[in-house]
């Protein structure tokens, strides 16, 4: 593959924002591989609705950073066609909500072509999707639809929570021979973190334990990881040690890491921004219930997910719609607090 993995010995690390890390990953992929290009609505001169592509159009020109008409279905299909014939397209869907306009190409075409063709073709495309609530953009610009796509065999779905993973998962996605959807959280774009200068990949399908703990496992993804870590610090002040797992990938999902943690703590809180009902929490809870690790549980599993409601405009209501740090703190304390042991 064209991109060399960074090694600890050779890699310089500095602080970048999540958006800058993605931009650096895009630039490095385009520098290393002429097959890679970025296209989407306002990704050129405008620099992307969230500023992610920034000056890439100046560095790589309008033939590799392509402004497009507002045609999400057509764009998703164009990614499929380019991927089928030797290119490595990266498509930005301006708000992840707009992927609803492109479902046909993502679900019927991209996900199934390899299988339907008996393994004789592949669709190495990447779709970047700014997602999530917290920006006051209301019901059609704030959703977390990642679970829909995690339900589709043939797709891979990732949700980076840090600048490091945003770059590493992007580069892994571009190298992957399958269609990969990256749900980037809009509230994370300005968050900062250590990012190696050289290109590197974060393996798709590997969760990471962000914090070790013996009392309760909190499985989170995307921005919920940050809230879970903050909640864990408060829990520690009360003597409860939470283990925080950042899923990073929803499909494939790293159940081994979850199971190992639950075996240790015996308590599980699953926290995610997507609507709770029929969401990823249900899947993880069911996986635990079907596994031997079920016998390690000392208490019922707790799911914290988005309310059964569209995202409202009013900021108080909006916050109340998705799990916040305090919700995670309280749920974990209820589960693992002194009165429970």
């Amino acid at each position, binding site marked *: 593959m064209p991109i060399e993995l960074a090694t600890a010995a050779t890699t310089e690390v500095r602080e970048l924002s999540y958006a800058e890390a993605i931009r650096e990953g895009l630039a490095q992929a385009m520098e290393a591989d002429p097959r890679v290009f970025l296209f989407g609505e306002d990704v050129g001169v405008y620099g992307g609705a969230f500023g992610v592509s920034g000056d890439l159009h100046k560095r790589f020109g309008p033939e590799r950073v392509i402004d497009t008409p507002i045609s999400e279905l057509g764009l998703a*299909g164009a990614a499929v066609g380019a991927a089928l014939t030797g290119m490595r397209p990266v498509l930005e869907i301006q708000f992840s909500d707009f992927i609803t306009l492109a479902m046909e190409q993502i679900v019927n075409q991209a996900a199934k072509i390899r299988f339907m063709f008996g393994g004789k073709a592949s669709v190495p495309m990447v779709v970047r999707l700014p997602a999530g609530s917290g920006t006051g953009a209301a019901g059609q610009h704030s959703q977390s639809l990642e679970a829909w796509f995690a339900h589709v065999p043939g797709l891979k779905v990732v949700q980076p929570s840090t600048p490091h993973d945003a770059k590493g998962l992007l580069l892994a996605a571009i190298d992957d021979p399958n269609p990969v959807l990256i749900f980037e959280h809009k509230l994370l774009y300005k968050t900062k973190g250590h990012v190696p200068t050289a290109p590197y990949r974060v393996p798709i399908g590997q969760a990471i334990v962000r914090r070790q703990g013996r009392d309760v496992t909190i499985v989170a993804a995307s921005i919920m990881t940050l809230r879970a870590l903050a909640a864990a610090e408060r829990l520690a002040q009360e003597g409860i040690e939470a283990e925080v797992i950042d899923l990073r990938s929803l499909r494939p999902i790293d159940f081994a890491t979850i199971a190992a943690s639950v075996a240790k703590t015996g308590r599980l809180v699953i926290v995610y921004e997507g609507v709770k009902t029929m969401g990823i929490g249900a899947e993880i809870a069911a996986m635990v219930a079907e596994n031997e690790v079920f016998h390690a549980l000392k208490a019922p599993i707790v799911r914290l997910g988005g309310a059964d409601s569209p995202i409202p405009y009013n900021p108080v209501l909006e916050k109340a719609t998705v799990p916040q740090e305090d919700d995670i703190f309280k749920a974990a304390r209820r589960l693992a607090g002194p009165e429970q042991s």
Partner: protein
Amino acid sequence: MATPGLSPSVPTIAATDERPELAVLDAATLRAALMRMHLIRKFEETAEASYMRGLIHGTMHLSIGQEASAVGAILPLRPDDYILSTHRGHGHCIAKGADPALMLAEFFGKENGYCRGRGGSMHIADVEGGNLGANGIVAGGLPIAVGVGMSIKMQKQDRVCMVFFGDGATNEGAFHEALNMASIWKLPVVFVCENNKYGMSMDIAFAMAVPHVADRASAYAMPGVAVDGNDLPAVAAAARVAIDRARTGGGPSLLECKTYRWRGHSKSDRNLYRTKDEIETWRKRDPIRLLEAELTELGRFEATELAAIEKAAISEIESALEFAKASPDPDPSQLTRDVYAD
């Protein structure tokens, strides 16, 4: 064909003269085109008979009666050009050079079919042969063609992508998004609409406000040409112009082949939306017999030679059927093998 300066009412070519669209096709090309039309017809008749006899399951969408549009449009393509096809795609697949034995094996769900039995009639692809697949979704191939066009252009190749779709697809948003993008970026794409008059049961006259699909090209500033889709030389001539334009950087074109499917939409069709007379009228315009009659009339082929081509096609499909029947079934333990690429 009128000579400039003369009134169009003055015939400059006698009725027995060969028309230019036909004259440009040499004997070998015509023989190959007839062979492929016969192969399509016999392939579909065999598939239908196998279904009736319970040898294969599922459903199928037959293109019997539309052979000239598939073969004629693909005739001027190069082997390394791409096509994208439809749910009614057996004709395109054979016209592009696919092996009917591997196609029938796919119909039978066999491991050595084109898609290892995972796709069936609606998803036959021959990627090595430039066929990027039939498609079960109306207008599904149109946006994909845009990406293939982008890919060709970015890789500085001189290939062309031809995408087939029915009249029904032209009312999908995907059609309009695809034509617009192909046009603004001057992509090497040829859009071929096989207008067989019905989107399942809906008459295109009731489903579209303009009289011809080709009229819609003007909204995307590309040439839009309607031809008799049952006239192979006419289809091939119009396709050649569009293909040359695409290959030389002129951008996309929309070609409308007006044709007719003799069979119903699929196996569930009871023909409640059209008359026997209408079907009969079109059956008299059988694209294969029309071409054969013209060629014998012009003295370019002997009737015995034409019969030999048909016989060769029958024989090839007979062996294809034997191959399909004798082929191995897939192994259920391999079910998820190709969900993901490694």
